[in-house]
């Protein structure tokens, strides 16, 4: 276990989060905050990628890939 020093104000806010989330320890609070941050940054990153994927079209494409991609081995 490692120790983290926080200000009085941050400590109060962490305690509030701990209570509201019904968590057992400050370790759980920090883990939950990290998870939430991770999620938010993933969402943010993904929202910047302007890409639309049609499932049906994708399946058709892969079917074509497999068909075109099996040319066979050496000519007789």
């Amino acid at each position: 276990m490692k120790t983290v020093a926080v200000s009085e104000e941050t400590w109060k806010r962490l305690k509030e989060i701990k209570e509201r989330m019904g968590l057992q320890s400050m370790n759980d609070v920090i883990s939950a905050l990290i998870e939430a941050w991770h999620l938010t940054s993933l969402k943010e990153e993904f929202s910047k990628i302007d890409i639309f994927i049609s499932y049906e079209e994708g399946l058709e494409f892969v079917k074509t890939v497999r068909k075109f991609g099996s040319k066979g081995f050496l000519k007789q």
Partner: protein
Amino acid sequence: MSSKIPYKEFLADTAALLYLYSLQSRDLLVLILSKFKIHVSAISLAEFFSFIYYKQHEYDIVSRFYGFTSKTHIIEPIDAPTALRASMIINDLIKHGQVFDLVDVFNVAVASAKNIPILSIDTERYQQYSKYGVTSLDVRDLVSDFEVYLEKAGSENHFPS
């Protein structure tokens, strides 16, 4: 998490990958990607990205998309141990006169080495590989089960998404 699905790690095949990335809700996809470890073989990734290149001609967008997928998935290489495992499976299939697909065999080789189930749309196609210790799960079941889990957890959800 207390989802019905007993696994946390999967290998998504090409169809499963297409399904996940075509989900209407991007938030749902991000939640799934953060709750489960979804491995992808290099060979399925190649098929998936050939479609992305086909649809999206702006290299910058494709490159950013690749940055996202490489960060959120575990990309499984077709390395020497995988090749060796695949060759053993192919030999066995040939001996039994079974028709197979090479991409499937590589995915099966990765899944069996990692001991994780394969996520697919067509779980039946993996039945012939069950003797190599590989199970498969319908990606639609995973998504719908996860949605139910989210609804239940909604009241206790501490961080609005």
